[in-house]
């Protein structure tokens, strides 16, 4: 029994064992494909798990944690250049490397999709007031292919837009073309009315048009643009590239000060009206920098409708006009005589008799019939004295000096309308004499102001500019010495204190200047009564800050001036009014106590001696008190 049990046990054990091995095998056989499958699923699942966990990590990172500086929304872009931001980067770049500057500009100003892109940059005055801008307007065109009742539509349009021509519009509407302009640049009110007509076939196209908020105030300086917004005259033309640069959307800053521009324009208009003149021109310039603060030429035009202007109104008398300046030129004769040392302030010349050369006579307008000291020659604007002065200087030195002052070259300014001066060739004795008192050579007012600036400021040349900070620091050669500058300043003050420029004085502002009354050259020689009356002034004369030049074309004397229409009666009072109004605006305090100096004593002494009938040069010791 036990043997069979044993056998059974062992049989069972072996059966079990064989079963076990068989099931294990089976399991192994089973687990092979299943485990492979499981492994693959696990791998794919792990892969997806990894991807999704990466995305969720990123989501959590973006929403829960604050964004770093690189992703921050930048500060809003301002339309004015931020000078503080500009300088550090700009300092690394050369002034003439435009391409790099453009790139840096782009980086500095973060451009957004919300920024509007103007087709043309604004132009502002030196204080940021807008003087030229581009505004979007609707331009009316018609699709006339299916136009019903064109005549009626034309009549309706004529009622809303009175400027259009009825016949032309009717013909256009009848033409059957798919695109024909009716009127460009409508104002919103007109656009609304045309829209309300409800005529199918009339469409609008948004176009940018140039708008000048100041109207005619700066018409000659700015110029105007054509239909396609390209500059045709003035600064619009000269700086056309800069204005059309849409990469750098920054306003063009002029050196013009709008307040002074209006002041000048207003006073010139008043003077033209008072004296029934045919035109006038004026400049206000800053002495130290050569920046033009105001430039006006009358008559002027409406820059929105340049086609309606005539040649006279479009003509920029300041930059393009070439005139014989008359006595204002004596400033330069005096400057060269003092610079070359041919005379000094205590010298003088005999002005008792007119000078006769060839067939004409040189006279004084207000003759004194005696010896005149240099200050008197200048203050009384004596032609005889000036001619004697230039005879000591000589032709070559006169030519050289005027050349150095820029009188032989076309004027340099940011306008396409620039005058080239007219001077005689050959330049003989008679030319030398007439040019010394401003006849025989034609230059523009800008030439005059530029040269005047040189002889009253530092003696170094500087270009006049219409752009703010337009003059970079240039070390130009010295034309006149500081001593000459000081003497010329003193003489200019004396003209206003004692001489023909008395009406140009503004109390407390130490105005200095020179009057000019030039007979105009007309067909057949000089016209007797047609004059260019001018005053070239500056203040405060001991350290001039501003130059004001006013020239009036063909003024006629009135009751208030006792019939006189000379520079001292017409232009000088205008300059005086301008100075009294601009000085408080610019924060220049008046200095009412003007202590007399050696020149005043000299003047007083010469007058005293003239009264006593004594003439000729005298010793300084006779009048100097201490």
């Amino acid at each position, binding site marked *: 029994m036990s043997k069979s049990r044993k056998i059974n046990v062992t049989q069972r054990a072996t059966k079990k064992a064989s079963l076990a091995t068989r099931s294990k095998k089976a399991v192994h056989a089973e687990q092979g494909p299943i485990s492979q499958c499981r492994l693959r699923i696990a791998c794919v699942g792990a892969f997806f798990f990894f991807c*999704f966990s990466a995305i969720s990590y990123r989501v959590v990172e973006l929403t829960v944690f604050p964004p770093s500086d690189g992703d921050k929304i930048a500060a809003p872009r301002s339309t004015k250049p931020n000078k503080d931001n500009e300088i550090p980067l700009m300092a690394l770049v050369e002034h003439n490397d435009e391409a790099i500057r453009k790139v840096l500009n782009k980086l500095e100003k973060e451009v957004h999709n919300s920024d509007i892109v103007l087709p043309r940059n604004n132009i502002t005055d030196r204080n940021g007031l807008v003087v030229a801008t581009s505004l979007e307007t609707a331009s009316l065109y018609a699709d006339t292919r299916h136009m019903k009742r064109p005549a009626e539509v034309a009549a309706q349009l004529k009622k809303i837009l009175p400027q259009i021509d009825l016949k032309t519009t009717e013909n256009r509407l009848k033409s059957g073309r798919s695109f024909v302009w009716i009127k460009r640049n409508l104002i919103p009110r007109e656009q609304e009315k045309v829209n309300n007509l409800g005529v199918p076939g009339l469409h609008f196209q948004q176009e940018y048009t140039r708008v000048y908020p100041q*109207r005619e*105030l700066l018409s000659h300086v700015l110029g105007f643009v054509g239909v396609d917004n390209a500059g045709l005259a003035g600064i619009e033309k000269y700086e056309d590239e800069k204005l059309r640069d849409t990469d750098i959307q920054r306003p063009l800053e002029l050196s013009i000060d709008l307040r002074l521009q*209006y002041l000048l324009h*207003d006073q010139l208009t008043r003077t033209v009206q008072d004296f029934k003149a045919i035109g006038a021109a004026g400049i206000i310039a800053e002495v130290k920098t050569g920046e033009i603060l105001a430039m006006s030429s009358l008559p002027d035009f409406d820059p929105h409708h340049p086609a309606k202007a005539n040649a006279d109104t479009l003509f920029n008398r300041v930059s393009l006009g070439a005139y014989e300046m008359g006595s204002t030129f004596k400033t330069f004769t005096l400057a060269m005589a003092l610079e070359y040392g041919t005379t000094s302030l205590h010298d003088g010349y005999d002005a008792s008799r007119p000078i006769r050369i060839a067939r004409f006579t040189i006279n004084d307008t207000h003759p004194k019939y005696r010896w005149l000291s240099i200050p008197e020659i200048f203050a009384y604007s004596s032609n005889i004295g000036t001619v004697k002065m230039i005879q000591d200087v000589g032709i070559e030195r006169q030519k050289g000096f005027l050349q150095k002052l820029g009188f032989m070259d076309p004027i340099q300014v940011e306008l396409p309308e620039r005058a080239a001066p007219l001077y005689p060739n050959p330049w003989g004795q008679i030319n030398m004499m007439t040019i010394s008192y401003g006849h025989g050579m034609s230059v523009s007012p800008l030439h005059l102001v530029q040269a005047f600036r040189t002889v009253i400021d530092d003696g170094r040349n500087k270009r006049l500019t219409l752009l703010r900070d337009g003059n970079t620091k240039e070390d130009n050669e010295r034309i006149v010495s500081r001593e000459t500058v000081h003497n010329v300043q003193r003489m200019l003050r004396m003209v206003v204190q004692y001489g023909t420029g008395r009406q140009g004085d*503004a109390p407390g502002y130490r105005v200095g200047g020179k009057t000019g009354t030039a007979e105009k050259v007309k067909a057949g020689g000089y016209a007797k009564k047609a004059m260019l009356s001018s005053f070239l002034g500056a203040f405060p004369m001991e350290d001039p800050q501003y130059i004001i030049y006013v020239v009036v074309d063909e003024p006629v004397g009135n009751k208030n001036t006792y019939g006189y229409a000379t520079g001292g009666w017409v232009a000088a009072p205008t300059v005086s009014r301008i100075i009294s109004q601009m000085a408080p605006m610019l924060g220049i305090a008046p200095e009412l106590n003007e202590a007399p100096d050696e020149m005043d004593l000299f003047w007083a002494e010469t007058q005293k001696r003239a009264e006593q009938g004594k003439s000729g040069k005298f010793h300084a010791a006779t009048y100097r008190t201490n």
Partner: protein
Amino acid sequence: MKSSALYIVVFVTAAIFGLNHFKFEVREVKNEVKQLERELKKEQNSLHVLEAEWAYLNRPERLQRLSQKYFTLVPLSGTQLVTMKTIPQPPQEEEPKIVPAARVVP
């Protein structure tokens, strides 16, 4: 069914839902941004037009005309301005010296 397979399926479904949800949200935000940009552009345009309008209304000729109409102001003249030097100053008084009591010699 193996529980791990179930977990995987659940997880994948949840992930799909979550992804779409975020995608939708992002699209919404993007639209919002575009809308804001459009409004900003409109405002910038208005600013530009208003700048021109401001310059026009503030032109000196108009200001002069209005000031003459509504005010009785006249141009400032130089004689109305003075500097500090011209104003008479009161004489500077010497402050009495304060001597400490201990230093006073009796």
